[in-house]
């Protein structure tokens, strides 16, 4: 079991460019979560999917952020017109929907985004 896979591990973009972050959940996990982590704000919830359906995107900045889960094996987080304040570590996590292990989130290593 490779765990949650996130690519790329590091990304540098110029201000105004687009950034797409990828997440491959653990096989058999049907819930996928995205978080953003910075020194100042700490760990912030962005959005999550259950059985590929978007359930709660209350943490997503409305204008430039979007997330999709086109199939059960990957999810993407897209940031359009990146700004320096988007610089952060973006974490993806997945969990099962049933059984004793439900709600235990398994995290990927994160994508470190730097916007210059």
């Amino acid at each position, binding site marked *: 079991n490779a765990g*949650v896979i996130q690519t790329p591990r590091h990304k540098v973009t110029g201000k105004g460019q687009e950034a797409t972050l990828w997440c491959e959940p653990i096989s058999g996990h*049907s*819930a996928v*979560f995205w978080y953003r982590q910075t020194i100042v704000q*700490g*760990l912030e*919830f962005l959005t*999550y999917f*259950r*059985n590929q359906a978007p*359930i*709660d995107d209350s943490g997503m900045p409305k204008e430039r952020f979007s997330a999709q889960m086109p199939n059960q094996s990957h999810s993407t987080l897209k940031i359009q017109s990146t700004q320096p304040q988007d610089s952060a570590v973006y*974490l993806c*996590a997945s*969990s*099962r*929907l*049933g059984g*004793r292990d*439900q*709600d*235990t*989130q*398994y*995290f*990927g*290593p*994160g994508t470190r985004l730097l916007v210059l």
Partner: protein
Amino acid sequence: AQSVTQPDARVTVSEGASLQLRCKYSYFGTPYLFWYVQYPRQGLQLLLKYYPGDPVVQGVNGFEAEFSKSNSSFHLRKASVHWSDWAVYFCAVSPGTGGYKVVFGSGTRLLVSP
């Protein structure tokens, strides 16, 4: 709505000393509770989790936590801290019904002094 408070942003402990990291939760009912650890430049890793049952939960690397419904707390403990425990520790709560948002605390940074 559920919430988690970790009142100590930073805790410093001498190597070999005992440790307690505090966690208070707010939830109507009996929640599922978690402690995660984040080592530098890594994602979060599960240390231990509580399901309704025995209030004392054993985790990895000698960590344990005790659930208290009366105090709405889930404090993390370790009898003897090692330098490798230097990390950020997050407490989290969920309704335990599967596929719902888990609410994380703000984290406690543990520093271990020689």
